[in-house]
């Protein structure tokens, strides 16, 4: 049985003006869903970039001068790009103080309808002797190294182009596809992997846009006690034809673009929030004016100012809560459904975990209820100080 108290009184009051309450709830829903969607988008990109760069497992990435952006596109966004530098760079980097381990990849682009029957994709030729990027995943997938004319596909390639246990023609050579790697959480999930022992044969057949003795990218680990930035600077000093990225710099361009989007989004949310505060103020001012007599009666019957405040704040809180909950649900649903329609997010790994989502939800809830409370604050302060004599004398409608 529902006991009568300030809480039930507040709920009854909310139910009185359904349309007006609905308008306010709707506006809070919109602002909170924009907030949740926007924050989800930004955090998604941010964490995707971070996760991908961490999972590569290299402290430094060396690419040809000017190819930094291309490398990020391949490693983070699974874009199909090819860029090359001379293979001798490997030995020159190995000699630099602080370098521990070095491995390299050669990216070869397949061209649909010319060399093979699969869509355009990046084929990664890697050195099985030194590799620490693909090898751990390969061990898990087939438990051995790849033989010549064997290839394995990335997790997403398997899903997207349906490449599985079959033979495939790559650059005029028949390759046996040994399976699919588990999800690595990097852009390489969309690539096809083979040993660099196959490069010679590919070059001989001339069906790939590739020259002899070139590689695309070098991954390096630095020795303990060495600062990756300092080692990177040494590499750039010694090898002028190379650009170096430290792990934390990977995706810097994406994140800096994100910073601009973030600012635009923040300004939009801020302005919309002000609008919502004003709407809440207007609605609660009207509500308060309509209820002057009731509040006067309550004060004359012995309600304290705190009772009046509490009653109105419960109403405000509930409206904010309804709007916030709807906004969080709507914004989260939108972010889950639409995330993959953004090019930047299409190939980024991961996504938000439950803790991230909960934190965004709490932020949305605080914003939604905060807007409502802020808007209603001044009308509530006004009404609680009402002198009930005018009410008692019947001067208020």
């Amino acid at each position, binding site marked *: 049985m529902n006991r009568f108290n300030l809480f039930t009184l507040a709920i009854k009051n909310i139910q009185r003006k359904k349309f007006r309450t609905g308008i306010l709830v709707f506006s809070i829903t919109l602002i909170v869903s924009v907030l949740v969607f926007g924050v989800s988008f930004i955090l998604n990109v941010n964490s995707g970039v971070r996760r991908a760069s961490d999972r590569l497992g290299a402290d430094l990435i060396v690419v040809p001068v000017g190819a930094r952006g291309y490398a990020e596109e391949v490693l983070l966004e699974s874009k199909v790009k090819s860029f090359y530098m001379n293979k001798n760079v490997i030995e020159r980097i190995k000699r630099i103080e602080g370098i521990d381990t070095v491995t390299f990849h050669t990216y070869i682009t397949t061209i649909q309808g010319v060399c093979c029957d699969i869509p355009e994709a990046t084929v990664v030729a890697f050195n099985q002797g030194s590799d620490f990027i693909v090898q751990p995943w390969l061990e898990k997938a087939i438990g051995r190294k790849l033989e010549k004319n064997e290839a394995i596909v990335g997790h997403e390639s398997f899903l997207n182009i349906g490449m599985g246990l079959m033979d495939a023609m790559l650059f005029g050579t028949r390759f046996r596809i040994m399976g699919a790697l588990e999800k690595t959480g990097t852009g390489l999930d969309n690539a096809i992997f083979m040993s660099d022992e196959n490069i010679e044969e590919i070059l001989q057949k001339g069906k790939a846009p590739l020259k002899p003795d070139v590689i695309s990218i070098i991954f390096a680990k630095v020795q303990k006690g060495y600062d990756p930035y300092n080692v990177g600077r040494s590499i750039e000093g010694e090898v002028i034809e190379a650009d170096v990225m430290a792990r934390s710099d990977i995706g810097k361009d994406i994140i800096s673009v994100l910073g601009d989007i973030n600012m635009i989004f923040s300004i939009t949310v801020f302005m919309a929030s002000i609008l919502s505060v004003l709407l809440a103020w207007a609605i609660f001012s009207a509500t308060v004016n309509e209820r002057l*007599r009731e509040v006067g009666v309550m*004060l*004359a019957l*012995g309600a304290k100012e705190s009772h009046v405040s509490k009653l109105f704040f419960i109403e405000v809180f509930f409206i904010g809560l309804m709007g916030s909950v709807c906004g969080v649900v709507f914004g989260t649903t939108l972010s889950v459904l639409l995330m993959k329609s953004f090019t930047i997010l299409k190939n980024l790994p991961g996504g938000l975990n439950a803790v991230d989502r909960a934190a965004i939800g709490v932020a949305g809830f605080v914003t939604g209820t905060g807007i409502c409370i802020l808007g209603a604050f001044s009308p509530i302060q006004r009404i609680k100080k009402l002198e009930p004599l005018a009410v*008692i004398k019947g001067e208020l409608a």
Partner: protein
Amino acid sequence: MHIVLKEVARSYFVGKEKIEAVRNVSLEIKRREFISIVGHSGSGKTTLLSIIGGVARPTSGTVLFEDNDIYFFDKDRLSEYRCERIGFIFQFASLLPNLTAKENVLLPVLFKTHGNRDIADSEKKAIELLHRTGVGDKVNAYPSQLSGGQQRRVAIARAFINDPEIILADEPTGDLDEETEMEIMLFFRRMNEEAGTTFVMVTHNSELVRTTGRQLKMSNGLISTVLHE
């Protein structure tokens, strides 16, 4: 003495014109008294009742309740006085439209600070009061489902829910037919005699005035004549 008013005045401005609603009124109200106040409209009766009830601060003078000046109380204590010592019956329909008759009667219980605040107990009492004021069959009716007279009786029941020591009634039987009016007066009389409740009642009804213990007349903000003591 239960309540003592000393040189109480209340004035306000309408535009630039100063209205003196109550002028230097002194009055002593004994415990268990039943006082009626008559007077023309605008003579200051409602303002005087509000000053006694702790609702309208006087411009000057003091209002002593059990030897304490109520307008020296802080805001919360003054609210407690209104809630727990006073029962107010307003001259107009004062029910909250979204509450049932029972909930309207229970409203002052929500504001209580001392004594029994148990809503379950108060619910029983609210139903009993509604029966005693003749609207026992309207416990769950909303004000819009009640006639003016029935609403008035719910408001009367509400005034008694916190067992007040003083009832301040502003034309309490205004909307009632003669028979109900007499029933309500009988109820008041019983509460006055059995529960020891003090009554200060504003009325225009000369029949009712005669049934009260002391009759005062107000005009121009002054208690001009004591009709009978």
